[in-house]
């Protein structure tokens, strides 16, 4: 491997590459960020944008939790509460989770492929600004919904926005219009970025990187992007129909004219379920990169990981109606969606087992990033199992739309996806900024978040079991939900503190963190071969790879990964000692 043209770690840093655009007045700097088509800057903007909306959506969640602290509480009105949970859901899915995963992909996919940018850099910038304007449009509804005299309006139809509640007859004013338009606009952004990921992964890989030498992160972003183009497009189509109904007097969802309330639910969940996998694929992707490095072992069963991801992608397109068991489908239809939903558990199980096997026999370094990964494993296991419980239709009829479901999907999205993303932030922050995040603050962040998470969401299952439905602004004192709701609210507050620590850590470490160097974690993929932060063109010399772990080969010339080719047996191999 001596002839490899991979830059030696630190080699680029020594050439003194700095970010030339950091010079100039603040206006010039701002201009350079606004007009940029650089995947790294766009990636950073996606993540910052998402963190901003995480704070906004988090405040909405805290308002919800304060209101539910007591039965018959009057902290906010019924209307405000309904707006809060609608905005919380819409914000967290479309303007926090989606931009977060797009941001990670934008930053990392070209670097891991050894490419100098995405396949379509200008489309990439366009997509980001579409997503960004979608968020602004949604929040403009506070002003524009019924005009300023309404002293704040926002959509109040639930983030699933079942028709005919969204029809003009039941949702007056313009708040629902802003909701639909904002999702159409940000939907175009999502589709654009997904097309870009696919084209980048297939067309921009560096020399020697066959598809089966591609790191798992870009692989999972390909699967995610496939799901985006197949799932977000139907949502966009449905939003266009809703807009036609509201503005042109159409009748798609007008039950008075023979239209159907049912078909919106189908369209929404045809988007809504794959959307979960759109978000969870990048979380898997982060696991696939972080766990091996801190376990000091190659990922266990790479082909199985790829196959399982693709399988999850396909099966997830056929499970949407498990959100609709109560809506009155035939028994055959219900049974079909029970089966397809349970089937998703199999490839998901394979992934969890493969991660355990990757840790097995390793020497695990418990950095904050790795702690978040272990947290992910346990919590995602529970989230998956409550998902299986929910797929059991007769039991689902009880649990559906109860707080059990709320607890379940927050387990997936917070306990799974957000934990993975926080792990990813701790892992790649040194690459992005050139400075380490503070590990002591990181441990505080992790443990507080774990405690807050479990106090909040473990307990939240119980009121659901005790019959508490979702979306209610208040509840009866005699139902026995009060104490439980108070515990949940306390847990929510603890999580808020943990996220505040993360934000402080990011700001503090940006300014004063230890200098990271190009490869602080002793990692193996191509992004660690360039300086931290990478120069605008990423790599001084275009890399050439001969295996999945080019840096491992370089660091272990006596024990390189064998060139792994398609179809080749990969069974257990011990290194020559």
């Amino acid at each position, binding site marked *: 491997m001596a002839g490899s043209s991979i830059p030696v770690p630190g080699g680029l840093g020594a050439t003194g590459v700095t970010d030339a655009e950091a010079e100039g007045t603040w206006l010039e700097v701002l201009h350079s960020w606004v007009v940029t088509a650089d995947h790294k800057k766009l990636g950073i903007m996606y993540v910052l944008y998402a963190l901003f909306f995480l704070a906004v959506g988090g405040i909405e969640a805290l308002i919800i939790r304060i209101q539910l602290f007591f039965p018959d509480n009057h902290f906010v009105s019924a209307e405000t509460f309904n707006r809060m949970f609608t905005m919380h859901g819409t914000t967290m899915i479309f303007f926090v989770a989606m931009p977060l995963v797009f941001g990670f992909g934008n930053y990392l996919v070209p670097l891991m492929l050894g490419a100098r940018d995405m396949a379509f850099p200008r489309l990439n910038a366009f997509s980001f600004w579409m997503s960004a304007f979608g968020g602004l449009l949604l929040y403009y509804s506070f002003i524009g919904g019924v005009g300023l005299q309404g002293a704040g309006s926002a959509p109040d139809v639930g983030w699933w926005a079942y028709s005919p509640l969204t029809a003009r007859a039941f949702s007056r004013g313009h708040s629902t219009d802003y909701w639909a338009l904002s999702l159409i606009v940000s939907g175009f952004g999502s589709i654009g970025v997904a097309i870009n990921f696919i084209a980048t992964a297939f*067309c921009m890989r560096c020399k020697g990187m066959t598809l089966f030498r591609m790191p798992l992160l870009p692989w999972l972003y390909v699967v995610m992007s496939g799901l985006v183009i197949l799932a977000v497009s139907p949502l966009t189509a449905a939003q266009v129909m809703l807009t036609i109904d509201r503005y042109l007097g159409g009748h798609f969802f007008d039950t008075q004219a023979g239209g159907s309330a049912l078909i919106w639910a189908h369209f929404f969940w045809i988007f809504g379920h794959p959307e979960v996998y759109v978000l969870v694929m990048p979380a898997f992707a982060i696991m696939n990169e972080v766990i091996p490095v801190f376990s000091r072992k190659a990922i266990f069963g790479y082909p199985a990981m790829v196959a399982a991801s693709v399988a999850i992608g396909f099966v997830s397109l056929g499970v949407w109606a498990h959100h609709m068991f109560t809506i009155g489908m035939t028994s055959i239809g219900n049974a079909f969606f029970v089966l397809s939903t349970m089937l998703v558990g199999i490839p998901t199980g394979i992934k969890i087992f493969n991660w355990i096997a990757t840790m097995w026999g390793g020497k695990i370094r418990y950095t904050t990033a790795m702690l978040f990964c272990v947290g992910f494993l346990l919590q995602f296991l529970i989230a998956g199992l409550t998902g299986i419980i929910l797929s059991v239709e007769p039991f689902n009829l009880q649990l559906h739309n109860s707080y059990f479901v709320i607890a379940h999907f927050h387990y997936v999205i917070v306990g799974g996806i957000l934990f993975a993303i926080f792990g990813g932030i701790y892992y790649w922050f040194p690459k992005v900024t050139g400075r380490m995040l503070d590990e002591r603050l990181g441990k505080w962040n992790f443990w507080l978040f774990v405690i807050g998470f479990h106090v909040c969401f473990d307990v939240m299952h119980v009121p659901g079991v005790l019959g508490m439905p979702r979306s209610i602004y208040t509840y009866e004192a005699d139902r026995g939900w009060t104490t439980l709701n108070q515990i949940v609210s306390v847990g929510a507050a603890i999580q808020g503190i943990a996220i505040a620590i993360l934000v402080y850590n990011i700001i503090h470490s940006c300014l004063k963190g230890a200098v990271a160097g190009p490869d602080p974690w002793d990692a193996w993929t191509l992004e660690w071969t360039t300086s931290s932060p990478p120069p605008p063109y990423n790599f001084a010399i275009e890399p050439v790879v001969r295996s999945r772990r080019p840096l491992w080969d370089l660091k272990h010339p006596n024990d390189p990964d064998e060139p792994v080719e398609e179809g080749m047996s990969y069974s257990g191999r011990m290194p020559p000692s």
Partner: protein
Amino acid sequence: MSTIPMIRDVHGHVIDPEWKLPSRGRVGMFALIVAESAIFVIFVVAYVYNIGRSTYGPQPRQVLELPILNTIFLLSSSFTIVMAERALVKRAMATFKAWWGLTIVLGVIFLLGTAQEWNKLITVDHLTISTNLFGTTFYSLVGLHASHVIVGLIMLTTVLIFALTGALKPEHTEKVEVLAMYWHFVDWVWVVVFTVVYVIGR
């Protein structure tokens, strides 16, 4: 998919041959077509689901006529654009411009046909998008397709202008081919729309 053949040196190590990857334009356009197809599928499902559910107002059987000529015009534009592409590969620019121009003309005729149909539906049959469920689903689906034809025509015309001014260079051949992929998609979606709206739905 990767096109790298495995060539090994004497030690069994793989030697990198010329590293060739698929064109990003084609892959990107393919992905866009998949996304667009998903949008069309939803509109088609909404149309099919609502066939016969209109409780009042004009019904398809009473007002729709088979747009056979229009269909022939649009589908033959798929043929003419292939001829144009071939001419471009052979650098026969005059032939290219002729075929390409003919493609645009066929597309425009199709749009005019649709406009005429809509004019008749609105003024004679009094069917608008808000009249009934049929009107809503019909104008949405056919309009969605027509808007794709319009976008396609704008892009085709841009290429024609470049060709007429001599700005179209050999290195642009692939971009023209990628655009042609989109046009083929627009044509074949019409087959689906035609079948659903004018055959099944009537």
